[in-house]
């Protein structure tokens, strides 16, 4: 078995194990797994409306996944995607409600604001890591909560006068289009999916085809070797966090300018940032892998909403399956040992 084949097989086995354990949980709790998975399938592909919602759902997943994956490739764990996503969302909506410009200027400006906000939010942990060697995991977790509370504060006190909702953005800043809505039976599908696909390409090109990308990957493989080879490790660490945050901020723009077209005070996290970790892990931290695993998670999440209606199974079952998939991918050591055993037997 070649190494490449194994690296593709491992996530597939993890997904299968996740689904098997999910099925067992349903059987134990007295639900009908066949009905549940049929409902999930119908809820994702049964109608063109659902299909539109699936695409709408996996658009931010792709970007959040890219954000986590990009940092991972440089050896950093950006748990702060959620926070960068929230500030991106807020910045996009802020520009969306505050200005009144022609669409060709307004929409790009709002998207840019989200990217810059996310990048700046990620710059802080990057700088602290490079300058003070502070572990980025803890700082980004803390920054998530700071982002949550600060953006709630800004919505309440700056954007509105003690309101809980920013109100809808101007039509000139929206990512939605009447055409996309009409072909998908008025789902919330928007043009963001194009940006997400372009972002996948950017990540691949940047990492695999440029000198800068080579440096970033070198730092990820071995900081000391990279340093010895004359690369500026600190600069690359900061840069990778900034790019990662930019992807996360863009993911926020997808929600702010596409799905919801407003920003509201939140009691807790949206979960997109944490799902992004799952997406990146399952996708093996590559652009193409992220794309496909985001589709899988988008299908699961949107399809799950149909499960309580059609099969009477709580949609949280899908959250359990996603968590299990993360578990099995993380513990892929035992899957690999198992695969090694099999391939050794074949040789004999």
């Amino acid at each position, binding site marked *: 078995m070649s190494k490449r084949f194994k690296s593709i097989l491992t996530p597939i086995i993890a997904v299968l194990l996740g689904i098997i354990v999910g099925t067992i949980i349903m059987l134990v709790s007295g639900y009908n797994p066949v009905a549940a998975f049929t409902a999930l399938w119908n809820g994702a592909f049964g109608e063109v409306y659902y299909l539109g919602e699936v695409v709408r759902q996996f658009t931010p997943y792709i970007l959040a996944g890219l954000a986590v994956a990009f940092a991972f490739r440089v050896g950093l764990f950006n748990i702060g995607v959620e926070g960068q996503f929230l500030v991106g969302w807020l910045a996009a909506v802020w520009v969306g409600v505050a200005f009144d410009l022609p669409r060709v200027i307004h929409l790009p400006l709002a998207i840019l604001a989200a990217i810059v906000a996310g990048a700046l939010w990620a710059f802080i942990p990057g700088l602290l890591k490079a300058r003070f060697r502070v572990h980025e*995991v803890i700082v980004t977790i803390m920054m998530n909560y700071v982002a949550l509370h600060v953006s709630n504060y800004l919505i309440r006190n700056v954007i509105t006068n003690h309101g809980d909702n920013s109100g809808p953005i101007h039509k000139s800043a929206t990512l939605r289009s009447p055409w996309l809505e009409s072909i998908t039976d008025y789902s919330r599908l928007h043009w963001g999916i194009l940006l997400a696909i372009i972002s996948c390409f950017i990540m691949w090109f940047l990492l695999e085809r440029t000198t800068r990308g080579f440096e970033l990957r070198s730092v990820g493989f071995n900081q000391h070797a990279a340093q010895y080879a004359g690369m500026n490790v600190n600069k690359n660490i900061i840069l990778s966090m900034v790019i990662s945050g930019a992807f996360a901020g863009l993911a926020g723009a997808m929600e702010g300018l596409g799905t919801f077209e407003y920003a509201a005070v939140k009691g807790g996290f949206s979960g997109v940032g944490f799902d992004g970790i799952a997406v990146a892990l399952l996708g093996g931290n590559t652009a193409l892998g992220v794309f496909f695993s985001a589709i899988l998670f988008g299908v699961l999440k949107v399809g799950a909403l149909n499960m309580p209606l059609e099969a009477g199974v709580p949609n949280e079952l899908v959250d359990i399956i996603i968590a299990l998939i993360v578990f099995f991918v993380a513990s892929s050591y035992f899957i690999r040992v198992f695969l090694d055993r099999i391939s050794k037997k074949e040789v004999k």
Partner: protein
Amino acid sequence: MSLMDILIILVPSTLLWAAPLVFTALGGIFSERSGVVNIGLEGLMVIGAFSAIVFNLFTFDTFGSATPWIALLIAMAAGALFSMLHAVAAITFRADHTVSGVAINLLATGLTLFLVKLIFDKGETGIISKGFSKIDIPILKDIPVIGKIFFQNTYWTSFLAILVAIIVWFIVAKTPFGLRLRSVGEHPMAADTMGINVTKMRYYGVILSGALGGLGGGVYAQSITSNFSHSTISGQGFMALAAMIFGKWHPLGSLGAAIFFGFAQSISIIGSSLPFLKEIPNVYLLIAPYVLTILALTGFIGRADAPKASGTHYIKGNR
């Protein structure tokens, strides 16, 4: 309103909010001191909160007023059991500790809400009829001034938290078990050479963190929210993690940090009814724990260094 009146409101409320953080942060210390990073504290609190509330709801008729305390034991057992997943993944299967912790959090929320819907057929449980309620501590409440501030209208769990912190400090700093635990977290190879079973010590560390995290969740749910829903535990586990770091991985330091964070949380809730404090925008109090933790890590408030081997896997025979 005199200063005395303010303290009478503020001190019990601070300790009420701090207690769950103290327990959970102490759990985090056991895990991290053994070298296993535990981002899953939040999930362990969720499991603890869920099992305590469910147990309380179903057995109140049997156990009466002892129910909340027995529910805490159940929460500890559930947390310990659940943390085994993290232990197996992070220690035996060599999963990235942070990733496995994230999975614990995702799984805990998914599983508990699934079970809530399975058992109660709606998104939240009912309200428990007996949680931890305000009490006056006998004898101590009669001490002038201090008794009124610290020992009246307060909660047993607050004092239990302080007691447990002292016990944990004693275990970690003064017992052979604590020494082994710390050595495994600092330099596992040296510990192994001295005949300490690294894997076993790390399992102990993680399982203890599960028990204490579950305890923290059980205390929180039974003294503050009184029911279980998706929003019962929202960030307390991460705040406990922050308290652990701000306390520099030291049980008493973390106790202090947790009390301080409890203070910030309680002010952000009751602050509007107090003079001086209502002038401060809420947002500063809400973000204070997190910003302070970042500053502590950066070295502006005394440098906080994690145990040397935290987050690494110990593989026998590797250098």
